């Protein structure tokens, strides 16, 4: 048994090393800006969907307002750079501000939205999202419908994408590491308990509001930061791109496709959906095709793999491994001094 566990750990470690090498070497092997552009967007979405999953996937509170933090992070960098006359690579020093703006917005947002339970919470996040989109359209400091442009980065066009590739790779790695740490910690355990039965968790001493709010703010912080990176890569932000309703639908789809609440599921979902969506948008002039396919994919997921790729595949592998074995392992024949106990494993269903 211990040998099997050691082998599994060694295999997982080796896979991680290979994955890291492949990720680092990717721009070297695929130097085309078209390809690295796909990779950058995929990494941006890996980071954001991991952050989204850290709150929504673990707690079961599905948020459709993550674009609030993403767009606000982008606008924060643009507005601050313009106001403080920051040019060149100095704008990267504003990325912590993008994260802070995400966190600051998440506190009152969470305090209001998290007072209600799941379905109502979704509606509130949508409402807040549209409030932010309307503010971006109507405030002077956000540049109205024109939006905000990023300062020029004095980088050679041949290395521009590569630099952003490694930056977004760093964001994705940090987001995944934080998600793993959260999931393994008591904090993550309590979030998952809230997902299963929030009232029961309260009855066992979990301060549910505090736990949910902390996860919501953490998720918003990472998303705000990545929004800032996205803005510098795209060099501009406008209300429909910064506060895009499809952004949140894509996140939900990625998480559901891969496996809500798992670590690897949303990553797999992002790797499948984001490049696919980008490809369809570039390839076909009909801008709605990708949206139509997204909707169809969502229906297919709900019907065929409602738990997502990772949990379903895990279940299949378990079944393969245990095929032919009894569903319940036989109880050791050692005598039990307490006759009452002997009834435990039996039919109490």
């Amino acid at each position, binding site marked *: 048994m211990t040998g099997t566990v050691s082998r599994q750990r060694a295999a997982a470690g080796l896979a991680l090393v290979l994955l890291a090498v492949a990720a680092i070497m990717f721009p070297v092997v695929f130097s085309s800006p078209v390809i690295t552009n796909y990779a950058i967007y995929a990494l941006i979405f890996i980071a954001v969907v991991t952050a989204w999953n850290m709150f929504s996937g673990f707690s079961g509170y599905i948020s459709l307002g993550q674009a609030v933090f993403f767009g606000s992070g982008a606008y924060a960098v643009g507005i601050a750079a313009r106001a403080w006359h920051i040019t060149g690579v100095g704008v990267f020093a504003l990325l912590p501000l993008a994260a802070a703006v995400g966190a600051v917005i998440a506190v009152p947002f969470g305090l209001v939205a998290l007072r209600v339970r799941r379905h109502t919470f979704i509606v509130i996040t949508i409402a807040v999202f549209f409030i932010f989109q309307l503010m971006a359209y109507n405030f002077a400091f956000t540049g109205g419908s024109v939006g905000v442009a990023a300062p020029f980065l004095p980088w050679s066009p041949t290395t521009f994408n590569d630099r952003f590739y490694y930056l977004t790779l760093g964001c994705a790695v940090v987001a995944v590491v934080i998600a793993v740490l959260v999931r393994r*910690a*008591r904090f993550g*355990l*309590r979030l*998952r*308990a809230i*997902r*299963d*039965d929030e*009232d*029961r*968790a*309260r*009855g*066992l*001493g*979990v*301060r*549910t509001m505090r736990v949910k709010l902390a996860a919501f703010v953490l998720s918003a912080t990472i998303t705000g930061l990545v929004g800032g990176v996205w803005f510098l890569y795209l060099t501009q932000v406008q209300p429909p791109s910064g506060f895009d309703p499809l952004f949140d639908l894509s996140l939900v789809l990625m998480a559901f496709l891969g496996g809500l*609440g798992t670590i690897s599921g949303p990553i797999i979902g992002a790797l499948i959906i984001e490049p696919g969506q980008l490809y369809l948008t570039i390839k076909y002039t009909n801008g709605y095709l990708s949206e139509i396919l997204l909707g169809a994919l969502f229906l297919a997921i709900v019907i065929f793999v409602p738990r997502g790729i990772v949990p379903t595949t895990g279940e299949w592998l378990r079944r393969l491994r245990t095929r032919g074995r009894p569903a319940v392992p036989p109880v050791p024949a050692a005598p039990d001094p*307490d*006759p*009452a*106990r*002997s*009834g*435990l494993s*039996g*039919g*109490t*269903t």
Partner: protein
Amino acid sequence: MTALLRTEEVHKAYGDSCTLEVEEGSVAGLIGPNGSGKTTLFNVITGYAKADTGEVYLAGQKITNVTPDRVFALGIGRTFQLTRIFASLTVLENMLVASRRGNAAARKRAMEQLEFVGIAGHHAELAGTLSYGQRKLLELAYVLVADPAVILLDEPAGGVNLSLVNHIAERIRELNAAGKTFLIVEHNMEFVMGLCDRVTVLDSGTVVASGPPGIIRTDHRVLNAYLGEDLDPAEDE
């Protein structure tokens, strides 16, 4: 003996007010027909429902309408009539949700409690895969993790087989001998009468009788409450 848990004229929507006392170190039973307000009283004590009027005291400290997490922190743990476990967490993880710490000592204590109730062998399994009886034991175990002063059990013997009923009763006796105080709602009269020091009978939110099991068993008001008719011989005359 002093009252560790006391409700004073608690009123929640239904009927009249309810006053009961649970003495420290005792096993108290709360019985009554369906809809008499037993679970509602549990909900009021543990903060899941707000009392319209009246007070709840724990060791003399007023805890009326305190939130469930605070009630638990103050030392009242409870189980539910229909078991409520965290199905997607493992059995051990279920235990750690209730634990005040997540360190090795907490894990050790959690495993000890699982051993105590008899499901330690299932610690790595998802709680959702447990049988109903095992879920009852898990609920009891994770309430014990935080070492509460009073444990409220809502129908611990409901829907489980006889051997498991005996097993649960034995665990309650052991815990009680170690100083734990219990308030138990149960319809299984044999279980209640064999286990409790004192039984309180509730009807329409009001205490109609209270006393040792031997007396309660023969109290005509209890029969009235359960059968819904007046069997008082005086009225027959």
